[in-house]
């Protein structure tokens, strides 16, 4: 099992090994339905077809999955209040979460109980749970440490409760939390299935506080194998300047807490997670002249290229444009990343999703960006970048209303391990590592 897992880490397109097995299990289970299938009769209610349901991400590794994992089409942040107070209760929480996450990310067949009892699985993905490229990423908020005296000395150095920035209008019910799960996969249904599994298995330890789902528009594969950044609900490509997640050394510098960081040793392999629910006033945006939109963002809308470039990956050279005649000085991309030697220290890894929630009391669309980013240093990363953005012209069209700051725990190393183990050990709570 371990060797297979290792293989999976390096190539996510090779994770299809489960297809044959799950396919035959499905066929065996359907029995009489097979006759109907032979006639190829089509119904409007037939399930949409995907060949990606057996894509699988490895749960074990020095880092949790879902951070440098390529972003799939559907994502969610669920924030919880945690009832577990004592070291043994917290151990039970971490172990149970890890067991559920390991199962859900791997997929498989839940057990069946007597019909007189509620089933252990919601069944919304059928009797065999497909992995569907699921990742579940566990992070802790400042309050998790603040409300547990025995953990307080071990709190990550820069973890704080998110404070409102200049343009924020934070809604208390959409902010903070002791713990987040970032759940992402190919489909919203897979994410919901995972969330319901967690809620059902840990009602005594977790109370759901808020959640936000989001999506990313899919694109057809390009003939030359190249990739483009997805668009946000402002219609612009988002993520063009993201650092390359395939460069391990770069990720060690930008994303991961390492032995070089002045963070507690237990936190190595972890990262700071920032979540921001940023409402976009899309009606107003759509009534803004194209040229003005482009000046506000600093990119051409159609291609995503900077004004002096032809593709989104071209890097603007601000040293040749000190007056802002090409890229306005207050353009979003210019304020966010000055692209001088010093600004590399403020790089962050963004992994956002677009969200759409319904209609406001004024009859406008409640849409925006479920902004998620990861960085080794919360202060030098997101907080610095956001301060640079404070007062930007884009603020007229966006309003951050929720989210929080969290610390994403290091990954579980192998089947004897669980997420959060290093923190418990640092706090003097010894745990047994046995292969379950």
């Amino acid at each position: 099992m371990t060797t297979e897992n290792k293989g999976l880490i390096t190539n996510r397109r090779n994770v299809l090994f489960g297809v044959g097995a799950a396919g035959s299990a499905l066929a065996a289970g359907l029995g009489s339905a097979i006759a109907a299938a032979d006639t190829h009769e089509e119904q409007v209610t037939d399930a949409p077809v995907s060949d990606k349901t057996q894509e699988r991400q490895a749960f074990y590794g020095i880092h949790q999955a879902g951070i440098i994992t390529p972003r799939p089409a559907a994502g969610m942040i669920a924030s919880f209040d945690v009832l577990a107070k004592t070291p043994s209760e917290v151990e039970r929480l971490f172990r149970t979460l890890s067991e559920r996450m390991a199962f859900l990310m791997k997929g498989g067949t839940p057990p069946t109980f007597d019909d007189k009892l509620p089933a252990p699985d919601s069944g919304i993905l059928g009797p065999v749970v497909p992995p569907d490229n699921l990742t579940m990423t566990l992070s802790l908020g400042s309050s998790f440490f603040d409300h547990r005296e025995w953990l307080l000395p071990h709190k990550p150095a820069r973890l704080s409760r998110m404070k409102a920035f200049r343009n924020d209008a934070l809604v208390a019910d959409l902010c903070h939390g002791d713990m987040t799960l970032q759940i992402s996969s190919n489909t919203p249904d897979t994410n919901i299935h995972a969330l319901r599994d967690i809620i059902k298995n840990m009602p005594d330890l977790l109370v759901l506080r808020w959640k936000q789902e989001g999506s990313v528009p899919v694109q057809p594969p390009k003939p030359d194998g190249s990739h483009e950044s997805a668009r946000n609900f402002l219609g612009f490509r988002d993520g063009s300047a993201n650092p390359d997640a395939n460069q391990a050394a770069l990720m060690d510098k930008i994303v991961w807490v390492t032995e070089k960081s002045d963070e507690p040793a237990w936190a190595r392999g972890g990262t700071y997670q920032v979540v921001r629910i940023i409402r976009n006033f899309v009606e107003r945006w759509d009534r803004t002249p194209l040229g003005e939109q482009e000046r506000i963002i600093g990119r051409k809308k159609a291609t995503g290229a900077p004004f002096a470039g032809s593709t989104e990956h071209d890097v603007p050279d601000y040293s040749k444009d000190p007056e802002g005649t090409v890229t306005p000085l207050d353009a979003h991309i210019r304020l966010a990343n000055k692209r001088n030697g010093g600004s590399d220290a403020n790089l962050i890894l963004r992994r956002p999703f677009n969200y759409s929630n319904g209609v406001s009391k004024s009859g406008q669309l409640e849409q925006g960006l479920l902004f998620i980013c990861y960085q080794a240093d919360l202060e030098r990363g997101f907080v610095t970048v956001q301060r640079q953005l404070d007062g930007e012209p884009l603020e007229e069209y966006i309003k951050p209303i929720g989210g929080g700051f969290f610390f994403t725990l290091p990954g579980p190393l192998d089947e004897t391990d669980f997420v959060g183990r290093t923190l418990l050990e640092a706090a003097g709570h010894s745990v047994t590592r046995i292969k379950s």
Partner: protein
Amino acid sequence: MKLRLLLSASLFAFTAALAPRAALAEVSPLDLVQPIADYKIYVSENAEKLVADTKAFTDAVKAGDVDKAKALFGSTRMSYEAIEPIAELFSDLDGSIDSRADDHENSEKDPEFTGFHRIEYGLFAENSAKDLAPFADQLMADVTELNKRIKDLTLPPEKVVGGAATLMEEVAATKISGEEDRYSHTDLWDFKGNFDGSRKIFDLVRPLIEKDESAFVTKVSSNFDAVETTLAKYKTADGYELYDKLTDDDRKVLAAAVNTLAEDLSTLRGKLGLN
């Protein structure tokens, strides 16, 4: 071979998690006769009390004594809340007695909005008993009718046993937010009624599963105890503090206990061999 790999991995995950046990205790239908009979007495006593309390409450409303009516509101509802799974078997009466403004398209102004919460709205939101007399008369007639119907009712065992979980589901889904008694904030009185009613059912059938399901029985009991302890912090001389006095931490403790009880008690029917 790959399939076996998937299966074994998934089985490990579930047995390791806190899943209910698959093996059911041997309970014969005859064993349930006495608990059901005892529960019938409990329901009847509460229904009688509801009639008496509602009489005093509606009399105060009709006399225009707003203060007295307000003082009686929380306690009058408790007997109804305790037997809600049975009262709800009569959906016409339940809607008339206990529906909330948001059950109706036009909220408080909706003519179909009647019963306890319509009177609560008048007393607490408008601080007046004016125009409430017709609602008081109808409420009195409804609870009298409910009591009569309960007398004639043969209690279905699965409804009785399932009621323990139903009460917790109600609290979990629509009460923990404080939206039930939104004008009076007497939600903790309702909680107490719901918990008492749920625990009564559990205690009545407990001897039937105590031996085979001792871990389950201990866990459920300790969660009921956690709720009692939390609620006791808010006890006053004549009832309970208002819901806005409940601290955030205690609300979380109650929410977790209620959801855990709902999860665990959802297996009670099955454990007793009921469909």
